[in-house]
């Protein structure tokens, strides 16, 4: 009997994306450029985070026409974003047949308390996290892949670094803690105990963990890989830069050769201006995307 929509199949697709770059695209033309550059998947959305920041307003799921147009253009997996807790947007994206849903803080949250019950879906979900508590809560809701939240649309990598360092540190803490101390960590972090036990047994997160939020250069991508991420999402960093196709290709190469400084030097040459960006520290608290959902 063939079984569809199992957790193994959901997390398995993320396993296939490892060592790869997932790129934000807003139309078929950008999707083609991303695929041509070697992206392992594209994220279909209406506006990249940098534009959402500038234009403001409520950010919602993309128009299905746009998602369908992108799905028809490329053969690599197509992901799309739904608002935090907006399970009907998720139902619509599943009905469209997208390959992965990002329940994302980049869009305006729809539920102040709850995330989507992701076990109810056959399509897999990826969710953002700033620390292990957040990551394990998302896993308890059925997420099959985790990514750092970083601070999307800034082109400033500091928040993504902060988040992966904290998650790594907390994983080390879980691994080295005796079982009776896990209860305390569970309480302190709001992290489901069963998942902490799983992390302790496996010595790592039970799913793939990507970097996201503020990556703009091949060096940023390699930095996140050296810090232990399994792959990277690049949002505004590509299509808000001078030469998107060259930059996209360079970031793909940097994720493969992240440990080879000589190759990284070659890869980083002559890419034109990166996205201008905005220092994450200069954002007012209400401008932060990473604090949405908890």
């Amino acid at each position, binding site marked *: 009997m*063939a079984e569809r929509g199992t957790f*193994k199949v959901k997390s398995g697709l993320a396993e296939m*994306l*490892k060592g790869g770059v997932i790129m934000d695209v807003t139309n078929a033309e950008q999707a083609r450029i991303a*695929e041509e550059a070697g992206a392992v998947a594209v994220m279909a959305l209406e506006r990249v985070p940098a534009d959402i920041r500038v234009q403001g307003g409520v950010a919602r799921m993309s128009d299905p026409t746009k998602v369908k147009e992108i799905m028809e253009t490329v*053969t690599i997996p197509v992901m799309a974003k739904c608002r935090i807790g907006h399970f009907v947007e998720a139902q619509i994206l599943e009905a469209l047949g997208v390959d992965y849903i990002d329940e994302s803080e980049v869009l305006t949250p729809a539920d102040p308390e709850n995330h989507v019950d992701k076990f109810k879906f056959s399509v897999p979900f990826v969710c953002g996290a700033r620390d292990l508590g957040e990551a394990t809560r998302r896993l308890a809701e059925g997420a099959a892949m985790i990514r750092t939240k970083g601070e999307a649309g800034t082109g400033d990598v500091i928040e993504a670094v902060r988040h992966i360092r904290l998650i790594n540190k907390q994983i080390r803490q879980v691994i080295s803690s005796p079982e009776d101390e896990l209860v305390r960590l569970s309480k302190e972090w709001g992290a489901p105990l069963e998942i902490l036990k799983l992390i302790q047994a496996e010595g790592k997160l039970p799913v793939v963990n990507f970097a996201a939020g503020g990556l703009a250069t091949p060096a940023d991508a390699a930095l996140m890989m050296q810090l232990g991420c399994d792959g990277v999402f690049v949002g505004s960093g590509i299509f808000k830069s001078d030469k998107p196709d060259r930059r996209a290709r360079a970031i793909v*190469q940097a994720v*493969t050769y992240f440990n080879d400084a000589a190759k990284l030097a070659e890869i980083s040459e002559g890419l034109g201006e990166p996205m201008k960006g905005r220092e994450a520290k200069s954002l007012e608290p209400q401008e932060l995307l990473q604090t949405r959902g908890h």
Partner: protein
Amino acid sequence: MIVGVLGLQGDFREHLQALERMGVERRDVRTPEALQEVDALIIPGGESTTLSKLMNMYGLTPVLQKQARKGFPVYGTCAGAILIAKEVEDGKPQGLGLMDITVARNAYGRQLDSFETDLNIKTIGKFHGIFIRAPKITRCGSGTEILAEQDGDPVLVRQGAMLAGTFHPELTHDSRVHEYFLRMIG
């Protein structure tokens, strides 16, 4: 014997772990030089278009094709099976032409059509198959042997020192297909 795993992209770590469990000497292969130092290669699951581009960009394609003509063994899983094929139905990416099969990408549909099921593999027996946006092997040339089928479609095929599978044994903790590959190449 040293078994290489193409480490450009995809779930190469899981293949390396399978080889580690078996106590086999193994290497992560990302350059033409590293490819020349191994006695066999596993091409992992991943995105076949990405893998193909990186192999071309970094000069691995001609080296692998040359080695394969001299009987160098290759086992491709999923994306790997696409890459070693002689023909890929929509031509995107082009197969490396190491094995006389034709492959259709994403032939079951999108991620929602990904599935897991029990297979029956010749000489191995019952084996759990995980199929993720899997391709189908639509033609098997002369000298190929079909080792397993799913609903009438070949899912594990051998030709000489080449082995192509459309499912992911590396995502289970069962090393029997890897063991078969090693026995096959002696």
